[in-house]
């Protein structure tokens, strides 16, 4: 669909009125400061896959897939100082790993690990990090269930255990753990406790509220359906924010904990897997971080986004985020990064989808096209400062230099490929704007790559399913089939 009207409206919204006789002055690109700035990245040993992070005062801890728990001094968040990496007596010594962690406020850390392909054993371990450059394991306990996120309140440990529900344990003075009760739940991913209530992100079953006035007698008192799988959550007084995967984030009123009310949902482009509260609500959204102003407690407002470093072909997924005031910490496969959020800064913020345009097959002499959507998610007008189509077989029908996109506005560009032959084609369009953190975005267009693409016949396949049976694509001839490639993480 062509959208010249939308672009015209966006241009009007962003341009001052000029006398009809004179040439309009080109807009002046803003000299904006980035609302979210990178402060520092890790200076410690190489790791792979950053999982969960937590902050306790000047100490930051995070779990990794194969290098155990890593501890950093964050007293100067612009100069992160590596302190130690801790391993665990349970699990694999070749691939020390944890997935989630929580602090008890007394410099004890509980880490959890659910079994997976690299490291099969599920366990809980308690570490003493009072000497943070030499953490000591106090206890470790293998379990036959699947522990995920946890929260410590005094001597009580609450662990979300997927289909084992909310598992409540005592932490003894020596750090040893003993289970006291379980509250049955469908698929508990994360738990946060406030006053006498535990709030559980319960996967597709939404939010569960558990009365923990007397932890050994804990019982679920409310369940709230949510429009996506609840994976993580944070509590802030009478409000609760839930990460809902592809559905974004939910805001829930818990002024009556026994009767939670869904107030608002904000979709995000990625998969929201982690939330953290500081001066704002920070969201780990797969390839980027998103910052929401929650001054209006009924309606979080997107105020900034920050791309994560994209250093691998597989993208830059982030699973965890932690915050302290205006400083936030996140990371991806191999990076841990500290950022500062500047609430007083306004700026334009460009989003381009898709960055990789897969054009339909084109035979010699024909044209194939794809729609690219450009959105200004920032708070100031976005000024295009350059548009470079780097191949004469490509045509760009969209915003060009000196065009302006108003805050909140979107425009569709049409990218056309005029094929001279049926050979595979790869070309680029470079979009330049006054966005302070992404001044240049490269859109890659691909056609006739020889692989399978939109419009081509699916070549068919036979697979073995997880129970060992054969599944053939041809069994579903005449049906509409969704093929979804996934991994369990």
């Amino acid at each position, binding site marked *: 669909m062509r959208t010249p009207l939308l672009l015209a409206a966006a241009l009007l919204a962003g341009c001052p009125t000029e006398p009809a006789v004179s040439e309009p002055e080109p807009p002046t690109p803003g000299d904006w400061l980035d609302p979210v700035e990178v402060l520092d990245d890790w200076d410690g040993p190489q790791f792979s896959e950053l999982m969960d992070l937590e902050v306790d005062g000047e100490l930051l801890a995070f779990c990794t897939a194969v290098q155990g728990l890593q501890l950093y001094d964050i007293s100067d968040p612009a100069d992160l100082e590596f302190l130690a990496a801790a391993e665990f007596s349970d699990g694999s010594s070749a691939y020390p790993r944890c997935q989630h962690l929580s602090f008890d406020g007394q410099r004890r850390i509980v880490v959890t690990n*659910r*079994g*997976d*392909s*690299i490291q099969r054993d599920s366990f809980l371990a308690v570490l003493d990090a009072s000497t943070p450059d030499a953490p000591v394991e106090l206890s470790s306990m293998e379990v036959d269930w*699947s522990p995920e996120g946890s929260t410590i309140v005094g001597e009580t440990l609450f662990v979300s255990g*997927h*289909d084992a529900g909310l598992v409540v344990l005592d932490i003894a003075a020596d750090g040893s753990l003993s289970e006291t009760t379980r509250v049955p739940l469908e*698929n508990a991913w994360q738990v946060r406790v406030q006053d006498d209530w535990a709030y559980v992100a319960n*996967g*597709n079953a939404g939010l569960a509220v558990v009365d923990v006035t007397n932890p050994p007698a804990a019982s679920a008192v409310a369940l709230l359906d949510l429009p996506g799988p609840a994976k993580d959550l944070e509590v802030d007084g009478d409000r609760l924010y839930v990460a809902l995967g*592809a*559905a974004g984030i939910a805001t829930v009123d818990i002024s009556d904990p026994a009767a939670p009310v869904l107030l608002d949902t904000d979709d995000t*482009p*990625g998969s929201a897997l982690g939330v953290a509260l500081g001066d704002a609500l920070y969201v780990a959204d*797969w390839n980027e971080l998103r910052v929401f102003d929650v001054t209006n407690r009924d309606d979080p407002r997107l105020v900034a986004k920050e791309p994560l470093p994209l250093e691998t*072909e*597989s*993208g830059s*997924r982030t699973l965890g985020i932690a915050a302290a005031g205006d400083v936030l910490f996140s990371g991806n496969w191999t990076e841990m990064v500290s950022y500062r959020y500047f609430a007083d800064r306004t700026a334009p913020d460009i989003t381009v989808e*898709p960055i*990789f345009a*897969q054009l339909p097959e084109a035979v010699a002499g024909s044209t194939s096209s794809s729609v690219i959507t450009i959105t200004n998610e920032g708070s100031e007008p976005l000024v295009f400062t350059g548009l470079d189509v780097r191949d004469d077989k490509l045509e760009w029908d969209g915003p060009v230099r000196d065009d302006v996109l108003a805050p909140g506005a979107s425009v569709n560009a049409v990218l056309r490929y005029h094929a001279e032959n049926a050979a595979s084609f790869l070309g680029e369009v470079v979009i330049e704007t006054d966005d302070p953190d992404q001044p240049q975005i490269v859109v*890659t*267009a*691909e056609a006739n*790559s*020889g*692989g*399978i*693409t*939109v*419009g*081509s*016949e*699916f*070549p*068919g*396949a*036979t*697979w*073995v*399913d*997880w129970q060992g049976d054969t*599944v053939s*694509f041809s069994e*579903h*001839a*005449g*049906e*509409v*089939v*969704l*093929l*979804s*490639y*996934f*991994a*369990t*993480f």
Partner: protein
Amino acid sequence: MEILFQERREQGFHVIGVNTRSFNESAFTLERFLDQTQVTFDVVWDEGTIGWFGWPPAIAPFPRQAVVGRDGRIVYMASEHDAGAVEAAIDAALAE
């Protein structure tokens, strides 16, 4: 996806979840995952035939999804999970 599947299976819709063995996932992990998610559609191993590496490079970032129409032709392909776009593509294909 489970909800998508349940709501549309009567109309001739099927889902094949392809687990990417290239990321070194084991049967143990997959079984645990399926226990947790309780999906009822087909879940298979990607053994590299039409798998991970058979897709064109522009679709490289993970995850990737494709919708195949009743005539066997691909009508939708994406490198990111976009629930709205996938659902729209499926419904358009079912309506044809």
